[in-house]
């Protein structure tokens, strides 16, 4: 591969992978915070308000990370992928500009009010600012996925005499059949991420607070832990199911129909078969064009794709090599990691929900440990999911229309791309460390106490602080969280 092409691709891949961790978390957490705020408004229970504020702090940190790592994405279309922008700006300019007008303004304007306005604003207005941030982030996701959907499955355009693409139908672009399922799949993935983090942190508080040597503060946090685990599981279960069926399933059907090479590559299917098996595990061997050490379920791939057990699925060998994704093994692994994790998520959440129903969840130490350890995995599933979409689209930038090798900035040399790539790597390493450090501190402070966070201790006097930290666990815990005690 041409070094300039390689480094421009790596540049984008690195910055998008780091960026993508954060919006997936905030879009899911935004929904959960709106649920907490709604309950606070409805019940007037201060505990929901405090829970929302606790998550608001972590949300604020993650949101800032998402914003600052998102700005370079919009720039890079022009800086590193100039020929792509020039050729497709007449189409995707719509969705990129709409994201600015309808999403960025909304979320950034109300974020400040949401994070810092809870004293100045009425409860309703504060609820609305939380909702506006949530809505803005989901609208933002829509327009970005709409842009990507056009690249995956271009519609509503024509190629002009000078080779540039021109939009011909606004509504086709926004009603792209690819868009609906990809958007829902991405968004349910975000909700899975938010739910697992909330449940995982809740489980951590419960495990801490239930120890016999737990401090009164830890016991107080454990009461919030119940709220978090319960909400995380109640939202996480449907989201984990929906991310697979129907959204993931329909997404795969779309890939099979419109990107047969990508489909064969991600499934690890080399030979065209009637009644193709579903590969669970195995290593693609590109020299001999076969899968090593496969564990397969016969006929299931045909059934899942075409709803018939003996349907024919085209393998890579019957597709011209210049149409193949250029990194079949990585694509295959990304897809299988995503699907494997997704299956585990459903299992974890089913088990947790069953225990919750039987009122045993909060005492089941094994399940709480499992929930705590599960929290980071949706991030891996998100990343590998995005890799599945993007590696599968190769060797195209716009599927069937513009090849990746024709899209990067010809005037920006590999050396310049390496320069900024190294800069971003250093900066993002620093950002990542700072984010984890500050988020861990907020988790350490916990949701419950008075005077447990530096924000609160600045509240002028600082006199009530000792009492706050040692404050007794409240006894008027809402009954909804009491099961299992």
């Amino acid at each position, binding site marked *: 591969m041409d070094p300039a092409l390689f480094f421009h691709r790596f540049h984008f891949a690195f910055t998008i992978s780091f960026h993508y961790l954060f919006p997936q978390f905030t879009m899911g957490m935004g929904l959960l915070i709106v649920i907490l705020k709604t309950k606070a408004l409805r019940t007037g229970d201060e505990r929901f308000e405090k829970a929302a504020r606790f998550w608001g702090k972590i949300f604020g940190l993650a949101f*800032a*990370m998402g*914003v*600052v790592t998102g*700005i*370079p994405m*919009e*720039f890079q*279309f*022009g*800086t*590193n992928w*100039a*020929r792509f*922008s*020039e050729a*497709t*700006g*007449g189409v*995707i*300019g*719509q969705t*990129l*500009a*709409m*994201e*600015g*007008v*309808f999403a*960025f*303004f909304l979320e*950034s*304007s*109300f*974020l*400040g*009010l949401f*994070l*810092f*306005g809870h*004293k100045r604003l009425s409860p309703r207005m504060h609820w609305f600012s939380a909702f506006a941030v949530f809505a803005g982030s989901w609208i933002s996701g829509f327009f970005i996925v709409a842009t990507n959907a056009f690249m995956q499955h271009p519609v509503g355009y024509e190629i002009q005499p000078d080779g*540039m693409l*021109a*939009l*011909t139908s606004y509504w086709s672009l926004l009603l792209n059949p690819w868009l609906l399922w990809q958007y829902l799949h991405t968004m349910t993935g975000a909700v899975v991420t938010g739910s697992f983090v909330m449940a995982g942190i809740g489980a951590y508080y419960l495990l801490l607070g239930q120890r016999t040597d737990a401090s009164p503060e830890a016991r107080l946090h454990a009461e919030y832990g119940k709220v978090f685990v319960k909400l995380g599981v109640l939202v996480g279960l449907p989201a984990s199911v929906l991310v697979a069926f129907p959204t993931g399933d329909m997404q795969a059907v779309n890939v099979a129909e419109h990107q047969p090479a990508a489909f064969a590559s991600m499934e690890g299917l080399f030979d065209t078969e009637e009644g193709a098996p579903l590969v669970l595990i195995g290593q693609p061997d590109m020299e001999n064009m076969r899968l090593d050490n496969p564990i397969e379920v016969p006929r299931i791939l045909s059934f899942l794709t075409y709803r018939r057990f003996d349907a024919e699925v085209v393998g890579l060998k019957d597709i011209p090599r210049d149409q193949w994704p250029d990194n079949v093994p990585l694509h295959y692994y990304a897809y299988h990691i995503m699907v494997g994790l997704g299956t585990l998520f459903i299992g974890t959440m089913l088990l947790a929900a069953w225990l919750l129903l039987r009122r045993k969840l909060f005492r089941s130490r094994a399940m709480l440990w499992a929930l705590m350890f599960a929290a980071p995995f949706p991030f891996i599933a998100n990343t590998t999911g995005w890799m599945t979409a993007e590696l599968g689209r190769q060797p195209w930038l716009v599927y069937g229309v513009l090849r990746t090798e024709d899209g990067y*900035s*010809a*005037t*920006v040399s590999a050396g*310049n791309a390496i320069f*900024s790539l190294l*800069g971003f790597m250093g*900066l993002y390493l620093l*950002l990542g460390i*700072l984010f984890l450090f*500050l988020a861990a*501190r907020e988790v350490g402070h916990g949701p419950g106490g008075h005077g447990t966070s*530096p924000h609160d201790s*600045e509240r*002028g006097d600082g006199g009530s602080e000792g009492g706050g930290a040692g404050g007794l666990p409240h006894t008027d815990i809402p009954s909804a969280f009491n099961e299992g005690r």
Partner: protein
Amino acid sequence: METLWFYLVAAMVAVYVVLDGFDLGTGALHLFIARTDPERRTVLQSIGPVWDGNEVWLLAGGGAMVLAFPRLYASGFSGFYLPLMMVLWLLILRAISIEFRSHLKSPIWRPIWDVVFSVSSLLLTIFLGAALGNVVRGVPLGEDGYFFAPLWTSFRPTGSDLGILDWYTLTVGLASFLALTYHGAMWVILKTEGEIRERAKRAARWTWPPLLLFVALVTFSTFLVQPQVAERMNGTPVAYLLPLVALGGILSSRRFMAGGRELASFLGSAAFLVFMLMSVVFGLYPMVLPAAGDPAASLTVFNAAGPPYALRVALFWWIPGMILVVGYTTFIYRQMAGKVELDTDGY
């Protein structure tokens, strides 16, 4: 249609300069006008709820540029590759210094972020001015409409080896630094009381005379490096009103400040920024990125524009969308009107 979008994008950039201009200027002054931690938090809280929204005008302007002038976006962004990457890093550092500072109450942690915040803001005011300078002066566009400019060359006023930083763009950059610092001081005066306000007034008094000097320098050298501006202005002499109104804005702002009329002095400074930009925009039209040396190779609103259907259909959502944005932006500014009262919750 292309011309309409040209002015729409220019308007978004102008709003960006006025809004993010004051919080960048505030940042550049931060270390100077606020010495203690409560003072610094007061300054940060004066821009806290709005700086993020202000910055979005740049992003939304960029988005509108992809839509309306894809060739300009592609050529400009790839040609200014290195400075744009640095702008990105500065924007990132600036944003996280505002967000991260408050999370730790430590006499080591907070001053670090104060310095990062202030230095990145200051550099951004210079870079934004230099960017404008580059667009006015023109770049060595090739036949394919692309270019790649070195970061700097010789800084000599003669010769054709243009750099992204050269004597002209640096002059514009320094003028921008002075203008935005003054603008930021107007904002701080408007939003604060006591010691901080006095220091901001002092800063404004100091920056005002060199600002006038640099405005004169920039105006003179602009006519020198970009002859088209003079041609356009002479063709429509009424256009000379634009820089005159700008001059009136900055003169009246200084008078209003002396008279203690805070809002009026801020608006005067805003008018100065807007009308200076309008003069430039009017002077360059129909060029959007002049080709240095060969005006015929320039990118113009016509040869850089997107397809007509895309421009037309976008108006249908752009206009209602922006009315909505202006509506709630106004609402938010009204919500936080008046002097900052130090709040334990924010920054």
